């Protein structure tokens, strides 16, 4: 404890002359917007080197003390805390200034997840927006972000969220209708859009019908058009597994949907049990009897 107190006293003694020198030799603005022009006033006489050191930028220029040094717009564009040093052969004066993000948003980083999800999911879609100025500085001041999710038929969900430390988050429900929805984030007149594919869920049921093939040697199995429980057509390519069980033997085929239906021809066995399934959804069973 005693050592810590001694360290604090020593540190304050060292720091005090710097603070005095800062006030006397350099007058830098306390803050400046990124990309704006600004000026630094120096005092005294003689030549010196002026350094401005920031998070990802360092400037050096030779100056005459006692003059006001102007910097053109765009000179400093990375937001952060900067150290200003006026260095001569015999002295070194320092000051500090903050470069703040420009107040007007210019760019949004919009993270929308997922890019594809089933219809009818509560809070299934999440969006995160980070607001940046023209120099890609994160704008930490609160901004109002409007999230809009619109489906192809024009139905729109809108959430307005204030940014906190430059970020705004939201969650939205997927709609009951399949399609490519536009998910847009808007701050002022700056927008960013993502596409969220809303896809049908599991088939609500599978209804299969059978008939003998023209040759009579096979059974033609065909499903009705498959739809999910919201009425959306299950997409082509979805696998339907047909199974025929007869006399201790079995025949199966994984058949992709084509134009909404799946069809296959299987051997005709008297007394065979026919069934269809897709994923975890089972369809009807048919007992095949030849007459």
């Amino acid at each position, binding site marked *: 404890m005693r050592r810590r107190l001694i360290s604090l006293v020593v540190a304050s003694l060292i720091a005090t002359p710097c603070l005095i020198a800062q006030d006397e030799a350099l007058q830098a603005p306390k803050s400046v917007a990124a990309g704006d022009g600004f000026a630094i006033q120096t005092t005294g006489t003689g030549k010196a080197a002026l350094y401005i050191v920031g998070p990802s930028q360092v400037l050096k220029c030779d100056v005459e003390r006692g003059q006001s040094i102007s910097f053109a717009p765009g000179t400093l564009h990375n937001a952060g805390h900067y150290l200003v040093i006026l260095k001569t052969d015999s002295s070194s004066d320092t000051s500090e200034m903050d470069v703040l993000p420009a107040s007007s948003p210019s760019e949004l*980083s919009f993270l929308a997840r997922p890019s594809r999800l089933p219809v009818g999911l509560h809070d299934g879609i999440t969006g995160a927006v980070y607001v940046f100025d023209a120099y890609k500085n994160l704008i930490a001041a609160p901004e109002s972000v409007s999230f809009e999710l619109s489906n192809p038929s024009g139905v729109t969900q809108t959430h307005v969220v204030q940014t906190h430390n430059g970020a705004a988050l939201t969650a939205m429900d997927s709609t009951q209708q399949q399609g490519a929805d536009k998910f847009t984030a808007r701050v002022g007149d700056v927008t960013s859009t993502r596409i969220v594919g809303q896809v049908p869920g599991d088939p609500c049921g599978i209804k299969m019908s059978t008939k003998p093939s023209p040759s009579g040697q096979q059974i033609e199995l065909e499903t009705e058009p498959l739809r999910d429980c919201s009425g959306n057509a299950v997409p082509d*390519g979805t696998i339907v597994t047909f199974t025929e069980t007869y006399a*201790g*033997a079995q025949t*199966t085929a994984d058949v992709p949907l084509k134009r909404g239906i799946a069809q296959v021809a*299987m051997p005709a066995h008297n007394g065979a049990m026919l069934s269809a399934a897709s994923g*975890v959804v089972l369809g009807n069973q048919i007992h095949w009897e030849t007459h």
Partner: protein
Amino acid sequence: MNKGGLLAAFLMAATVALVIVGTIWPAPSALAYAGGRHVFQSSATPADAVNNLGQAIQAKSWEKAYSSLANKAQFTEPQFEHDLTGYYPSLLTYATLDHFDVRPLHSSADNADMQITLYWSTVVGLAPVSRDVHVTRNGDQWQVAWPVAKQPVVPPQVIPVNYLRWDVIYPGAGDDWGTQAVEAPHVRIVDMHPVQRAEGVVIMGELLNEDVVPAYVSVSATLLGKNQSPIATESSFDKISHLLLPKQVTPFLIRFPDRSLSGVSSIRMSPFSTLISASADPVIEIDNEHLNPAPDASLTGQLINQSGQIANVAHVLGTFYDKSGQVVWVADRYVDTALLPQTPVPFSIHIPEDLARTISSQRTTVATYSEGGAL
């Protein structure tokens, strides 16, 4: 000369001497592998005749093998070669014969029936192919009559193929951070069951692609000890169908050799999926599936390619369930011939004897590889 130089000179002289000895008096097996004269014995017995034929096939001396046959007038030499290696590119096309077994079935003074099992070394392991051959005496020599299975001829026809194909476009390298990527397919393990077997711990189950896009999938598992620390991690490797179309289910089996379930407190399952360009074609029907009881328990059936495209390699996976519907075993078999359109090809999957009595139902899936396509 120092000791090192003396040793070098001695080694060089010994090497030259051994090379000369090996060249002048080569070992018969080395000569056979070098493509020179084969270690043919006289075909004085039926077994010798079949052995000689097997050695000729092993050395890919098709001409010698063909010329030794008793029934060579019934087919040509290319037909004989294609009968062994496939008429169309298949597992056997690039395989070599690792070894073969000969087993007598029946014999008399002038005739004999033998079984030759050829163990082809393929990219997916040994593929045994058994043939029953008839051997006849011709003077003091015996000759093998090779049972050529002539390739079924597919009638010329046009089969319309208009199944779906999925392609994937990923974000480009120059796209901004935060640009939306395409979501990986959603897959789910719908069943998982660890068992203790003599060879170690086996984890089996089923994986469902619940998405609307094809998925390349694999499953890995980590055994966790009593203090939740990982003991071992393994993946399903090829005991799974890696390509899953929407709503398709694949079994998987993961082996942990020399591990015991008694030391395992929990298992962490990690299904992996990624987007893959794929086609819904070809459709393979699995016909006439039979569960054959022990002994020699097996699942047999026929694969029928319902599409027009030739499937060069077929991987058949059988999932076996007990009466309660729980997965009790997963087994697989690669079919060593190409699947031609509408042409049945038989398959047989071995089932462990101790499990055969507990199995009451099964489900079979087929993954195919077509030349120029993807799994």
